[in-house]
């Protein structure tokens, strides 16, 4: 990641954490005051939320300052150009697609639409397909590998550890 991208991430993360800190601070305000001890349940969350928000503010200000600085590419190339440096390209969309597939896999089981075995085989085969450049010819291999892995883990968890899977 370039310095500008990192700065943008810092601003985003700082903002999100300030929101989180604010939520904690206000929720802690609803807690009853201490009866038997000096500190009480609300004090530490509030102190931590304030410290974290203050530190996040500093980080965001630093991020804004570095975004305002002019970009000076080294040797005429952007610092993060992986292709120019001979590295394979990064694939953030692939990562996002695998994450969404995982969310769907968990949701399908949580909503009791499918049990672990069929959902697991479908999920594993799909993410293997995604991660192997959507190679259609290799789908049988993906399905076979997924079936072996999912069914063997199902057997281990239910028969060996005696845990019910969904």
């Amino acid at each position, binding site marked *: *990641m370039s310095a500008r*991208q*990192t700065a943008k*991430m*810092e601003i*985003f*993360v700082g903002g*999100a*954490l300030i929101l989180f*800190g604010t*939520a*904690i601070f206000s*929720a*802690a305000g609803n*807690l*009853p005051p*201490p009866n*038997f*001890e*000096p*500190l*009480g*349940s609300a004090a*530490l*969350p509030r102190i*931590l*939320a304030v*410290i*974290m928000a203050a*530190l996040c503010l*500093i*980080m965001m200000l*630093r991020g804004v300052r570095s975004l305002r600085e002019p970009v000076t590419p080294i040797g005429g190339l952007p610092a993060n150009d992986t292709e120019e440096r001979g590295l*394979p*390209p*990064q*694939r*953030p969309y*692939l*990562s996002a697609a*695998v*994450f969404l597939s*995982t*969310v769907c896999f*968990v949701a399908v*089981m949580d909503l009791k639409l499918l049990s*672990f075995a069929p959902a*697991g085989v479908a*999920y*594993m085969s799909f*993410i*293997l397909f995604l*991660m*192997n450049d959507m190679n259609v010819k290799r789908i049988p291999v993906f399905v076979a590998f997924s079936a072996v892995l*999912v069914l063997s*883990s199902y057997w281990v*968890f239910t028969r060996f*550890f005696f*845990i019910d*899977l969904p």
Partner: protein
Amino acid sequence: MQPFLDSLLYLVQPLPFALVFLGVALGIVVGAIPGLTTTMLITLTLPLTFFMDSVNAIILLIGMYVGGISGSQISATLLRMPGTPSSIMTTFDGYPLTLKGRAERALGLGITASFVGGIVSFLFLAVLAPPFSRLAVTFGPWEYFTMVLMALVMLSSLSQGSLLKGLIAACFGMLIHMPGIDPSAGITRLTFGFESLESGLSLLPVLIGAFAVSQIFKDIINIDMRPPRAKLGRQGMLLSFGDWTRFAPNFLRSSLVGTWVGILPGIGANIASMLSYSMARSASKEPEKFGTGHEPGVIAAETANNASVGGALIPLITLGIPGSVVDAILIGALIMHNLEPGPLLFISNPEIAYGVITAYLVGNLIMFAIMMFAVVHIAKMLYVPRSYLLASILLFCVIGIFAVANSFFDVWIMLALGVVGFVMERAKMPLGPFVIGFVLAPIAEEQLRSGLMSTGGSIEPLFTRPFAAAFLAISVLSLCWPLIQAWLKRRKVASA
């Protein structure tokens, strides 16, 4: 001595020995594969240890810890891709040796150095841990609170360079632990109406989400990166008598540096190897050769990073204070097995405390044997297709977390923390302080509140009790150190 021998006798029985062996072997393989980390392996193994006896669970995890630190040198030496950050310094001289066609020699030096570092730090662990725990029994809540504070501040300032981001991560980790029942007052807090939050966030979903899931998504982004092939035989891996005498001062110095750095909370194996490497270069008559495939460079880096593990286990079993992220996870493992990490561990559960010490010794012996005899085959694991590996790990994350409490809530928390961990890493925010904040938050809060109760709200003991005042002073110094450093630098520039 007797508890130590009892523990050693237990460990040479078939099942415990097999568990240490399995742990070391898995640790080596996972440590060797770039992108997979020892932290990931240990967090993913935690759910399975629920079904095991506490001693067996801990010795398995210690085996993984030893194996992981040692295994990372394989990819560092053969591919210039350190399996874990602790082997970054090994790449400087290990990889040039590989390019010169001396990969076996580089690995032989690294394996022997890891073994020596492990054994020397074991001696310190075995000798120092019992008296340390006796001293720690005298500590009260103020000492504990300031010690936790010191660990958090030192880890934040030293883990990845940015004190500001480290502190934010530590505060965030501590806040994440706050929802649920407040143990001191017995009331629920910060649940935002979610019933599932009443018991708080469990350790495992947070750990697996932050370390394993986020790492998998990071690895998928770089899935097209293929490691280059390296040829490897088995000639010349054992060190000669001449080598031993030539490298003896380096072995000793690096072991001492590694052990000492390991004892300090939060610094970790990567800093240990950097410090040891720079000391070896300063002490050398040929400092210009470092970084070009110079054998003492490999020895300094690998001896220190393994020695730091033994050093870090000293505060872990005597005080319950983690020296690194893996140590924080080991503390989590102790808590999950209803054990109380800290000075009482030696009194209430000596089999665990001595189990850690002896497993560390046996783990190092097994590591040496496995690495010497099987490194050629382990090196082939570097080329396992990443897509199959990552997909399988992701599936195990989901079922492993579900299996612990039969709860989808935990699985959702794991996925959410996976996103949090991923975003934090993109913002270059260290995950170490986050997870250590999460693990230490309840200890810090409990000790602070009981300390305040005992003094009627006064914080005077922070300054009047010697150990508490010392820990507090170190914390303040760690916080101010970057400012002092910047001031000194400005003064130096101004005077020049």
